[in-house]
Structures are given as structure tokens and as C-alpha cells.
């Protein structure tokens, strides 16, 4: 006689629902769902339409005023001085992403100071999605701002440099900075929020204070900067997709909070 005959055991069988749930859990763990890109962008658009700009920037509106103030008070006069010294490219590299970087930093700082982050992480619309939408809006505002700044600096340079060239420099700086900032946040969370802009400022100051670098920058043709801008914009959108996808799929890793 074997053990089963001596100790007959009734093995309870799983119900259909339990079987399906068990299979779904195994599959989710082994092969996490990768959402199609179109679904992510549709979700972003849907969320943007649902919340509106007012909700998106609720409580942090003063941060943009402060960022704009810093731009006007500190950066534009400095840019005007530098432009007179024919260092337009150096100025643009520093100034183009400045409003984006300052606004992003200040809004995150304010969210941290008001201690609302912990709450927001538990609400239906992922805070990552809100951050993503904010960054996209800031990017759009910065693109418009870059055109205005280029116009001002072009006038100050007495049109000695091509406007298209200045615009290509500005856009390449903006998109490269944006994609590096986003990549840093994806990889290192909140820890990357300060180091990336600091590193950018340090690198941007090199051509400001070192003549050979400034000269070299001025010699790069517009199409090279345009290619860098296009690559930066593409990389930014790819990073944005992965940034948002993590929040929507439920595999969100908190930004180091």
C-alpha cells in the first residue's frame, strides 16, 4: 500500500477564476506589459484634457514668475554683455534651457517643501504623468522663449550672425538639456534633479570664459546644430515615453522619495 492509499488526501482544485488570476499573475511577473507608444501619448493627451493647465500647475504658479524674474534680472543683462563680446553661441547654450531648468527645479523644490508629494503619489493620476505634462508645457514655452531670446541677441549682435544659426544653437541646447535631464530622472530619480543642471552650467561656462572654445563653437555650421537639435528632440520624446510608461503600467519606481 502506498502513502496515498493509507492517507487519502483530498486536494482542493482551483476554480476557473483562481486559475485565470494565477496565470495572469505569473505572466505579469515574467513578462511585464509594454504599452504601445500611441497608447502612452493618447493617455497623456487624455490626461492633459482632463486636468487642464490650472490643475497641472496648481500651487506652483509662483515658481514660473520667479524663474522669469531670474531670467530677466540676471541672465538677459549678462547675455547682452556677452553678446557684445561676440560670444552669442556661448550665451545661447547657457540661456536656452535656463527657463526650463529653473522652472522644473523650482516646482519640484516647492512640491518637496509643501510635503504634498507623498499624498500625490497615491492619487489616480500618477505624479509622473503630471511631471511629464509639466515638462512638455515648459518645453513648449522654452521653445517660444528661445525664439524671442534669439531675436533679441541677434539684434544686439547687429545681425552679424545668422538668425537661423542662432536658433539652431538655442534649440540644440534646449533639447539636449531636456533629454539629459529626463534621462537622469529616469535613471537616478530625485538624485539627478540638481546635478544635471549644475553640470550643464559648468560645461556651458567653458566657452564663456575660454576663448578657443568660443571660437570653435562659432565655427560649427547651422546644420550640425540642427541635427543635434533633431536628435535631442527625438531622444527627449523617447525618454518621455519610458518616463510616463513606468507610471501608467503600475511598475512605477518612486523618484527616490
Amino acid at each position, binding site marked *: 500500500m502506498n502513502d496515498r492509499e493509507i492517507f487519502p488526501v483530498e486536494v482542493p482544485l482551483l476554480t476557473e477564476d*483562481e486559475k485565470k*488570476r494565477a496565470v*495572469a*499573475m505569473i505572466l*505579469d511577473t515574467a513578462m511585464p506589459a509594454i504599452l504601445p507608444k500611441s497608447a502612452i501619448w493618447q493617455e497623456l493627451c487624455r490626461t492633459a484634457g*482632463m*486636468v*487642464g493647465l490650472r*490643475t497641472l500647475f*496648481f*500651487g506652483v504658479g509662483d515658481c514660473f514668475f520667479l524663474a522669469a524674474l531670474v531670467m530677466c534680472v540676471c541672465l538677459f543683462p549678462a547675455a547682452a554683455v556677452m553678446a557684445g563680446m561676440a560670444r552669442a553661441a556661448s550665451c545661447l547654450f547657457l540661456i536656452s534651457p535656463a527657463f526650463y531648468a529653473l522652472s522644473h527645479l523650482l516646482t519640484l523644490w516647492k512640491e518637496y517643501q*509643501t*510635503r*504634498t*508629494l*507623498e*499624498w*500625490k*503619489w*497615491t*492619487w*489616480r*493620476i*500618477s505624479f509622473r504623468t*503630471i511631471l511629464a505634462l509639466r515638462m512638455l508645457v515648459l518645453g513648449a514655452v522654452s521653445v517660444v522663449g528661445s525664439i524671442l531670446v534669439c531675436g533679441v541677441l541677434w539684434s544686439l549682435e547687429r545681425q552679424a550672425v545668422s538668425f537661423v544659426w542662432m536658433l539652431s544653437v538655442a534649440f540644440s541646447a534646449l533639447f539636449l538639456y531636456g533629454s539629459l535631464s529626463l534621462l537622469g530622472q529616469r535613471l537616478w530619480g530625485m538624485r539627478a534633479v540638481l546635478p544635471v543642471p549644475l553640470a550643464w552650467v559648468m560645461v556651458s561656462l567653458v566657452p564663456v570664459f575660454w576663448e578657443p572654445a568660443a571660437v570653435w563653437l562659432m565655427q560649427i555650421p547651422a546644420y550640425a546644430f540642427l541635427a543635434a537639435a533633431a536628435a535631442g528632440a527625438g531622444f527627449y520624446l523617447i525618454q518621455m515615453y519610458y518616463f510616463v510608461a513606468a*507610471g*501608467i*503600467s*503600475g*511598475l*512605477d519606481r*518612486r523618484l527616490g*522619495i
Partner: protein
Amino acid sequence: MLSVERVTKCYGNLTALEDISLDLAQGVYGLLAPNGAGKSTLMKMLATLLFPTKGRILWDGEEIVAMGERYRGLLGYLPQDFGYYPNSTPRQFMRYAAALQKIPRAETDRRISRLLELVGLPDAADRKLKRLSGGMLQRVGIAVAMLNDPRLLILDEPTAGLDPGERVRFRNMIHSLAEDRIVILSTHIVSDIETIAGRIIMLRDHRLLCCDTPTQICGRFRGKIFQLPADAQIRPHQHVLSEGQGENGTVLRVLSEMPPEDGVAVAPSLEDAFLAIYALKREGA
């Protein structure tokens, strides 16, 4: 049903929680433990703010992390020390929270009015948050946590900083909220939960000690809690739990296996049980 399956949480070499398993159905659960025992860690894991190092947490059989937005849609969470925008009013802040909770705009104002009525703040709806007292802010917090009519309500130390009157009002409110949902509230103040919690979850040494009704927990110490005059001599096998005022002056409540001289047996309260459990732990029992 919310299931916690063998959850462990470590921060480097420090184990905050070890091998916690719970099954929670509808009702009020009080999470009771001293400071630093892991209450907030457990609450944060239930709210998906932290992730277990080992084990998993399931809602109706599905992992809450994988559920993502669906789980957050049925969750209402009140952090221990929540923030707000001081210059906004309760109505503005709740509209903001409602938008982020995907509550339809047509429904939002009606829900806000009803919730502010429920928490006793209909007249403060348009006052700036920075002008509200601690108790009023806490009530706004509860209203925000209730915006999406959650199936699971997690309140982390919700009565911290409230005066006795506000704590009584809070307890009454929780009674009315718990009818058809799971409510988990954490505290180290026993009186806050002993009358409203159907079950008490106690943690000790980062592990689950028990998940029982207050009656069952107190029952473990029946016949072992005595009241002595303050000047009574305390023997080595007796543990002083607390001191209070009796009819004839200060009295001590003491845990003792044997009835002490001059001691009067008293019915053990949840506070006695809480103090006894942690007193025994400190003395290595």
C-alpha cells in the same frame, strides 16, 4: 479583501518589518505599536509608497503594484504629516485633488460639499488653509482622502496633535465611514482605537504579534491586572504598567501573575494589554 503575504521590508541591513501576513476584510483595523515599530512602513507599503523587499500585497488576489492606477482609484490615504498649499482654500485644494483623482467635474462640487458637511467644515470651505487649526486641517485631510469614495481607507496617525474634543469627533466620524470599506488607522494612542477598531493589529520586534479583537487581546491578561496604592511595595515579579488617579489618591496598575497584597483585581483595558506586551518585551519575557 486586502492580503499581505509574508511581507518583509529592509533598508540596507536594517529590517523594518519581517514576515508580516494579514488578511483584511471590511471593518476598522487599528494598527497599534510604539514609535519606530514599523507602523508607517506598513501603511506606506499598503499605499504603494514603498515596495516590499520580500513578499507581496494583494487586493482581491491581484498585486497592488501591478494594478497601478486601478488600486490607487480605490485607495484613500491620509499621510501622517501631510502637506498642503497654505494659500489655497479647502474647496480649491479638494477641486485640485478631485481632478487628480479623475472625478468628473460635474460631480466634483457636489462631492466636496457633501464631504465638508460630513467632516463638519461647511463654513470653512472658502477660508485659506493656513488659517485653519490643526484639527480642522486634519478633517480637511480626511475629506480629501474620501474624495474618490475609497474601498480602502488608510489613515496614518490621524489623531496626532488633536485635542481631546477633536479626537472624539474623529472617532465618531470613522464609525460612520467604516460601514462598507476597509479602514486601517495607525496610532500609538490606545484610546483612539479601542472603541472603534473591530480588530487590533499589533507589531513587536518588527513582526506581527497579533490581529485580534480588543476583547481577545484584553482577555489574555484577565486576572493579571491589579490596582495598588502608589506607596505599595512592588515585588520583582510585578510590572508597573501605569499610574493614575483613584478615589483615594494615586494608584498603580500592575501586571502580576499572583495577586499582590493590597491589590484589587481590575478588568484589563486595551492600554493595560499594550503596556503589558511591551513591558514584557523590554524585560525579555
